C-alpha cells in the first residue's frame, strides 16, 4: 500500500488513540501489584497500540515508534531482565528469584519482593510487546508487504 491511498480519518484517529492506549498499558503493568493486570496483559496492549499504528499510518512511518529490527533484540532484552533478576539474587547469596537479596537499600523484605515482582513484570511486558510486534513484522516481510 502506498501512503497516498491511506484514509486521513484512520490516521488521525489512530494517532490520537495510540498514546492513551500506551498510557493505559503502562498503568496495567505498574498497577499489577494492586489490581488486575501485569506484564503479559500490559505488553499485549502496548503491542496492540504499535500494531494499530503499523496498520493505519504504514510501516515506514510507524517505524519511528518501534523499528522493525528492534523486535527480536527487545524481546531478548525483556527475557534477559527477568533472568538477570534471578541470576542477580543467585549471585548475591540467595536462591533463583529470591527477591529479598536484591541490592536495593532501605527496603523491608516484603518491599524487596514487591520491587522484584515489578522488575520481572517490566521484563515480561517488554518481551511480550516486542515479540508480538516482531511476529507481525516477520509475517509482513515474508509476504512481501509492509
Amino acid at each position, binding site marked *: 500500500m502506498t501512503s497516498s491511498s491511506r484514509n486521513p480519518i484512520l490516521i488521525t484517529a489512530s494517532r490520537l488513540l495510540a498514546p492513551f492506549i500506551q498510557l493505559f498499558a503502562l498503568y496495567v503493568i505498574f498497577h499489577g*501489584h494492586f489490581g488486575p493486570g*501485569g506484564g503479559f496483559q500490559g505488553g499485549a496492549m502496548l503491542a496492540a497500540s504499535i500494531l494499530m499504528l503499523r496498520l493505519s499510518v504504514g510501516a515506514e512511518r510507524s517505524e519511528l515508534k518501534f523499528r522493525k529490527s528492534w523486535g527480536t533484540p527487545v524481546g531478548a532484552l525483556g527475557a534477559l531482565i527477568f533472568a538477570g533478576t534471578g541470576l542477580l539474587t543467585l549471585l548475591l547469596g540467595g536462591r533463583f*528469584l529470591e*527477591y529479598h537479596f536484591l541490592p536495593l537499600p532501605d527496603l523491608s523484605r516484603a518491599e524487596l519482593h514487591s520491587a522484584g515482582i515489578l522488575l520481572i513484570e517490566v521484563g*515480561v511486558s517488554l518481551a511480550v510487546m516486542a515479540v508480538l510486534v516482531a511476529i507481525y513484522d516477520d509475517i509482513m516481510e515474508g509476504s512481501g508487504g509492509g
Partner: protein
Amino acid sequence: MRKTSLIALVLFGALLLYASSGLPGHGDPDGPSHRERSRVGSPVAAAHYIRHAQADAASPNIVTVVLADYRGFDTLGETIVVLTAGLVCYLILRRSP
C-alpha cells in the same frame, strides 16, 4: 467418519457435563482447593498463599504474588516460550538479506 466423530464428540460432551455436576461450587470455601490438607494429608498450597501473600510481598494482589514470586520460575519459562515463538517466526519468515 464424520458421523463417528460427531457421535464421539457428543458423547464426550455429555460425559464432561455429567462430570462437571460433581465439581464443588465456584468459590466454595469447603472445596478441595481451599482445604488446609488434601485428601492424602499433604498440605495444600492455596491456603498458604492466601494467608501469606500480603505479608511476603507487600501486595494485595495474590494472583500477581503467586505468578511472579511463588511461581516465578514458571513465569520465566512462559516468557522464554513467548520469546522462542518470536525467534522461530523470525527464522522461518524473514527473507535472508
